[in-house]
């Protein structure tokens, strides 16, 4: 199976990234992907946030696509607000959104 590129960008001022990494790794392994292949990067300055298009911690991208569209959120060193599928606000993306992003990337790669 073709392994998509998976990135987790975080800012240390927000405590959610360890749990985000664990959930991401679990989702990857459920889909038969290598959970140790995640590229984890710290974003520590406003300049870096702007360069990375970083709208908050954690940000997860699969083949360059954010697991939840950030819309027009400004870049910032902050905790990211996620909206769960049941409407709750959370510091973490909905696990179903993460799985869907991984699954879509696998599907696209399998066609090319």
């Amino acid at each position, binding site marked *: 199976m073709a392994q998509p590129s998976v990135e987790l960008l975080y800012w240390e*001022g*927000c*405590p*959610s990234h360890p749990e985000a990494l664990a959930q991401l790794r679990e989702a990857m392994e459920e889909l038969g992907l290598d959970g140790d292949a995640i590229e984890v990067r710290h974003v520590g300055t406003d300049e870096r946030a702007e360069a990375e298009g970083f709208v908050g911690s954690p940000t997860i991208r699969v083949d360059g696509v954010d697991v939840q569209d950030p819309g027009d959120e400004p870049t*910032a060193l*902050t*905790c*990211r*607000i*996620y909206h769960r599928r049941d409407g*709750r*606000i*959370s*510091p*973490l993306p909905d696990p179903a959104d993460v799985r869907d992003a991984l699954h879509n990337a696998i599907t696209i790669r399998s066609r090319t």
Partner: protein
Amino acid sequence: MSTAVGTEAPTFSLPDTDGVEHSAGDAPATLVVFTCNHCPYALAWHDRILAVARDHPDVKVLAISSNDAARYPADSYEKMRERVQVDGGWPMPYLYDETQDVARAYGARTTPDCFLIDAEGRVVYRGAPDADHEDPSQNGAWLRDAIDAVLNGETPANAETTPVGCSIKWKDG
């Protein structure tokens, strides 16, 4: 430096979103909650804190935003006012700590970070609203237990928990 459980709570006077000044005290208990507009932890717990305020009209509940609004515009005084208006009002005042002096005096670390103060002005609980920001059924249980204890003249069994949330955004940080 942090305001420890059992010590005297710092005094303050801060304006709410209508410009009215509020202080802790003159109530059987005062709950001070450092919070903000932009933090997902604060937002996830927000409805539970509102529910605590509604369920305890005898307790003075004060929400305080202390974040640096220059770097985090979503936490500006104007945005605070907008939020309360959009919500149709809150059952507690939303206070603006522009100088961050109150957050520093309390040693607030996160949003949310909760301090329950008894009628004598001592801090009797400090920490998170409950055990899980992801689980609405927790219903602010740690705050409710502490409030019930104080109103019954008792010491909260669980007087200190670890505050969980976004870091306070200090102006010099």
